[in-house]
């Protein structure tokens, strides 16, 4: 499916809205996972508003496409998009991390409609996604399972166990998206703990690898379509992204992996996105 200029503009606007919601959920003076949430905002916008087959009125619809954030700390983006789609009222977004809130620090499937699994203990989401893809094959369903990984996260050995499962079982109903934002909690990946090379590793592990600009909604949409054509093996979309993309004072900075915005910074960020979110 080709993407019209109109659709591209709509998705870009949605991604900005998601970033706005992320900034508002975190608020000023409090820590929040700004960096890794903003780096996947464009990907999430394309998945939910263009690519995925899903129904907010029926979150457990058996034929839905599934999205798991293996990098569960970026849940703010998924919370924002689920609210935007109508899985739950948007006013819930203001309850992030409050006692009893459905918006936990890391996503919980029993608390929030639209969350497919508990993730956040890093390295586990891709395995859970493999289980869902295996179940889809067993049940002869044609749903897709999407799973977003981080470039810091793949230091977890379990990711590579899962990568072998996906290849061995030829899970062509599984599409992973690699959020290559280049920065982990303690600093740049190449300095702190270099997980490179990325595409080569996934290829060697039996995946079909595509590489894109993870902030171009057009490239994201095209890559997701190309991934549909991959048969007999899982597909990996390496998305080159920028940590905290869209929030200039935080872009590329490790301190905003789980950082605190000052009142002033928060106001700056809010104003940046305001025109889209009136």
């Amino acid at each position: 499916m080709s993407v019209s200029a109109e659709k591209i503009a709509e998705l870009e606007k949605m991604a900005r809205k998601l970033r706005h919601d992320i900034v508002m959920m975190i608020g000023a003076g409090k820590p929040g996972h700004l960096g890794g949430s903003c780096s996947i905002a464009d990907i999430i916008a394309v998945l939910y508003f263009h690519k995925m087959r899903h129904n907010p009125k029926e979150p457990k619809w058996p034929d839905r496409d599934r999205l798991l954030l293996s990098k569960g700390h970026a849940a703010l983006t998924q919370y924002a998009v689920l609210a935007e789609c109508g899985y739950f009222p948007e006013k819930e977004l203001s309850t992030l991390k409050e006692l009893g809130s459905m918006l936990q620090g890391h996503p919980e499937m029993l608390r929030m409609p639209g969350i497919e699994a508990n993730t956040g203990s890093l390295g586990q989401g891709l395995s859970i996604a493999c289980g869902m893809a295996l179940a889809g094959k067993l049940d002869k369903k044609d749903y897709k399972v999407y799973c977003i990984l981080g470039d810091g996260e793949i230091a977890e050995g379990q990711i590579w166990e899962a990568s072998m499962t996906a290849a061995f079982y030829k899970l062509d109903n599984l599409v992973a998206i690699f959020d290559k934002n280049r920065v982990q909690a303690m600093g740049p990946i190449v300095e702190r703990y270099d997980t490179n090379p990325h595409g080569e590793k996934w290829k060697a592990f039996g995946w079909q690898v595509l590489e894109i600009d993870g902030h171009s909604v057009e490239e994201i949409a095209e890559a997701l379509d190309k991934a549909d054509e991959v048969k007999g093996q899982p597909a990996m979309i390496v998305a080159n992204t920028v940590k905290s993309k869209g929030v200039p004072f935080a872009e590329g900075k490790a301190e905003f992996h789980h950082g605190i915005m000052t009142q002033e910074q928060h106001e700056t960020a809010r104003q940046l996105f305001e025109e889209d979110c009136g």
Partner: protein
Amino acid sequence: MNMQNCRTVYGETLVELGRENERIVALDADLCKSTMTRLFEQQFPERYFEMGIGEQNMISVASGLAISGKIAFANSFAVFATGRPYDQIRVSCISNVNIKIMGSSCGLSDFGDGATHQSIEDIAIMRAIPNMTVLSPADGIETRKMVRAAVEHEGPVYIRILRNEVPDVTDEKEKFEIGKPSVIRQGSDVTVFAHGYMVYKALKAADTLQKQGISVRVVNVSTLKPLDEQAIKELAGDVKAVVTVEEHTIIGGLASAVAFILRGQAIPMEAIAVQDCFGQSALSYEELLEHYGLTDTAIVKAIKKVLA
């Protein structure tokens, strides 16, 4: 006495269940000939998933299958099925997924393989996780019923399975219910709480003591969690003392659980368990149990001591 191998019984039961229920799937980490899920694989190859030697991934894949409506049996040796993927199990329990973790060759029953392969903390770590049900069958008869009960139960279950042949000690006709300790032998002087193969050892000790005029009640506590506190209190309430026996470390297993339930009561208690140490290789199971003091003679001694 009829002897049965619990892992064989497990494998056969899983096949029976697989025939009855299409939702059942099995995963194994390159030990299916030992855990006996090979039997399931032979019958239902499309519902068997070899996970290679990767237990962490196996548990999370099982979770993904379970979230998608399957009843997922994840298999390995008890030590690798619980310790290696502890966090994966924990996360699965947060979402209360319908996975069944089968810990084969449990306790010291893998006598030859040494400390790395002997699971003496599995019950402690599985008990510590909210939402988890922890089961330890005493024999083949109970293994069969328990695996069926695990399928009926919605949510995560851990069952530890012995490697070797053990004598039947439970009643074929008695219904198994998760959470209910069962009296295997009535007695009035002392209550012995045991699970797994140690139930048989306790019965042997009770035989010996009967000849000496001491009446021993033997209770099979095959559900370690949830533990029926009221039942334990009642079974301890009308005797002079209690003894716990387990093929597990003294920390965090049956002794800990019973002592906690009976806290504040003046009843004397002794505990037989692996002390705070690891196992090692031996040439036979019985030799190893004897080395760690898990014998009927040790139980006799403990009962006499606690009654003295």
